[in-house]
């Protein structure tokens, strides 16, 4: 049970894709947590929507840090593969899972 912490935009890093590849390889009860520029994944554009579909297929939680959407002026009305959390929720998730693993 790992909380995978991703902080780079999918346009700038293969972090999310590489993380998904490992999660696809072996069934687990892990989750993804997207912060900083990784929250640009929520913007509805072609490349992002393919990733949304991969997350749906994984059927694992994908949390989005609300504050990082707000400062970027991005919509809080998210696709169904995402859940919003605030910093308190982020801290709690860090404890709910066995460990936090970064992908940058």
């Amino acid at each position, binding site marked *: 049970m790992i909380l995978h912490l991703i902080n780079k*935009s999918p*346009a700038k890093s293969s972090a999310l894709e590489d993380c998904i590849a490992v999660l696809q390889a072996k069934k687990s009860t892990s989750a993804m947590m997207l912060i*900083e*520029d990784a929250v*640009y994944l929520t913007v509805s554009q072609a490349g992002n929507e393919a990733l949304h579909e991969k997350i749906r297929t994984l059927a694992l939680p994908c949390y989005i840090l609300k504050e990082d959407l*707000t*400062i970027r*002026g991005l919509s809080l009305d998210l696709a169904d593969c995402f859940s919003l959390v605030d910093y308190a929720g982020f801290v709690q998730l860090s404890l709910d899972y066995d460990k936090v693993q970064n992908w940058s």
Partner: protein
Amino acid sequence: MNPKNILIIIRQAPYSSTLPAAALDILLTAAAFEQNITLLFMGDGVLHLLSEQNATSSGMRNISKALPSLELYEVKKIFLEESALHKRKIENEELVMPLATLSLPEIAEVTEKADQVFNF
């Protein structure tokens, strides 16, 4: 001496880098030196134009608030890449200010005519 044609392109998304803020500072300084300035938002750079940004807890500068005041500095040539909004499903109404668009061939032309390009 004739003013130089300076093209400033912002391509990086907000908060991913301090370069867009650096671009804005170069623009304001060059404007003070009465150079001929064009500002262009390309790709993820258009995300700076979203009107609902709120930088409070990020520790980084937000340039969206400064954009509407650029006219005061005689910076009137401000454009955005034609397909950048559509690709991100962003509507014109979501922007801090309305802007004219440039197609890729037009961008190529503006780029060629510039004496110096800062592409951040």
